[in-house]
């Protein structure tokens, strides 16, 4: 079985930052592997180590800079990587779900995987929708917010737990081929070993343009337009304790005594 894992490099915003137009200033951003995707990569690599998967391929929509992040996934055990990018994508302000679906569907068509794993959501634009949208587009079954996976190769079924709200899990059988969106906590993502990092240097990261995957610039046209970005207004009337650690702890202790929860 071949497993395709979608991997995203996400921007994290520094504690203090400025908004310039409809984006956060580049100097306030740091890039990292999307947390949810890290768990998806780990799940795929474990499927390979346990037997059912022969190959783990990652796919990323992102500029050349993203290769650093992709190398992390390769160092953790993915076999090779595909990176889709070109000028039309670079110019797009907001890659909406439909655009990402189109691009990833084109890659699925080329790669013909049996299982696609994605993170539940991404830490930056947080649509939380690409995996399920992709599944529908490529005619795969799917499961969203999966926090346990028991893959039955003989029956072609993924037995999954879906993490619902309020401490309830749904047990679901999903026919393969499928797209599963992976929730944090499903496994314990490994650290990349030095050996893995060395090996990753020689693994393939195939850059592809829209044309390479059989699409034209229309595929990037979005119905969603970002019109403004701002820091949310705080409705807070928080009373902040001033002073050094001893003083602030002292004030906090007073409050806890006043509220009658500590003596």
């Amino acid at each position: 079985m071949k497993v395709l894992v979608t991997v995203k490099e996400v921007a994290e915003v520094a504690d203090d930052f400025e908004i310039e137009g409809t984006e956060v200033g580049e100097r306030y951003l740091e890039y990292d592997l999307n947390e949810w995707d890290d768990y998806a990569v780990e799940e795929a690599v474990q499927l390979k180590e346990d037997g059912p998967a022969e190959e783990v391929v990652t796919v990323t929509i992102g500029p050349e800079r993203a290769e650093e992040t992709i190398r992390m996934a390769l160092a953790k055990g993915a076999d090779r990587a595909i990176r889709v990018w070109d000028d039309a994508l670079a110019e797009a302000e907001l890659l909406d779900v439909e655009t990402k679906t189109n691009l990833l569907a084109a890659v699925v068509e080329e790669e013909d995987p049996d299982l696609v794993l994605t993170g539940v959501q991404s830490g930056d634009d947080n649509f939380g929708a690409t995996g399920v949208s992709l599944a529908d587009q490529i005619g795969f079954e799917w499961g969203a917010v999966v926090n346990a996976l028991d893959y039955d190769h003989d029956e072609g079924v993924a037995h999954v737990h879906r993490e619902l709200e309020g401490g309830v899990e749904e047990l679901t059988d999903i026919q393969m081929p499928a797209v599963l969106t992976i929730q944090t906590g499903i496994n314990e993502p490994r650290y990349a070993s030095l050996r893995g990092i060395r090996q990753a240097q020689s693994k393939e990261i195939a850059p592809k343009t829209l044309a390479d995957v059989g699409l034209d610039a229309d595929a990037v046209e979005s119905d969603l337009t970002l019109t403004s970005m701002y820091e949310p207004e705080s409705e807070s009337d928080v009373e902040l304790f001033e002073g050094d650690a001893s003083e602030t702890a002292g004030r906090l202790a007073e409050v806890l005594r006043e509220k009658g929860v500590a003596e």
Partner: protein
Amino acid sequence: MSSDVLAVAEHRRGEIRDVSYELITAGHHLANDTGGDLHLAVIGGDTERFGEDLNREGVDYVHTVSEGEEFNHDIYVQAVEALHAELDPEVVLMPNSVNGLDYAPAVANRLDIPLATDAVGVDYDGGLTVTREMYGSKVETTVEVGGDQQAVTIRGAEWPAAEGVGDAEIAEFDADIDTDVGSTVTGFEEVGSGDVDISEADFIVSIGRGIEEEENLPLIEDLVEALDATLASSRPIVDNGWLPKNRQVGQSGKVVTPKVYLAIGISGAVQHVAGMKGSDTIVAVNTDPNAPIFDIADYGIVGDLFEVVPELIEEFE
């Protein structure tokens, strides 16, 4: 040109979920702006009882689809697709819940309409504008959603729940659903039961990512002991395996309502806040003055927990 709004209710194990009533409020507001009707759909389960229950002020029609007992995304997608074809609404509203995200993206894809998820605001003025957050709630954005028809999922607890009995027309809708589907729900499992029920606690000390390493847990345990409090945490601590699931506060964990909730090294992601905002008094200790937790806290210390916690332990020893 269509202008109606279709909202899809959610239920689980025989109960309508709160987000359904919030959808009604959001949908009513939107339908007022579009000048159309608010149609509500409820799919599966005890649709007769659910239909009556969902007949709240602002709802014009309730369409019941009697297929299946519990949520099944294959059935939901077909039902919403069929309702969409029949009603031709301008906007489809669905919950941004775990189940909402298990079918809404497929609905949008199948109908070939744009999708905006996790909306905290929706407005219509000749076109649809959605308010969303990015970068872990650090920024808010407004997004114009083009196209003639759109799909939106709305975040729970952002709109008040609709109340009052309405005068909606309630009718069964025959969606002609293919039940030979590829996903089957086989059961449910309660997780998070264990030695302590944090939802009963009066005083909770809760920890998040800010404690950095498992090795720092004993420091917090000393504090909990000195304060005679109950230890809880946000999701990352449980994901890391440092505390069991029964200690997790939040959307996917427990909802707690203590007298005092002391949040240490917790940034205040919306999923966490959903589980603790009902606390009488919220106190936050965090190094980041912009952390969203300070927006809901009553008292706060902007500072290093590794300096503050030992001082606090000393106060009570």
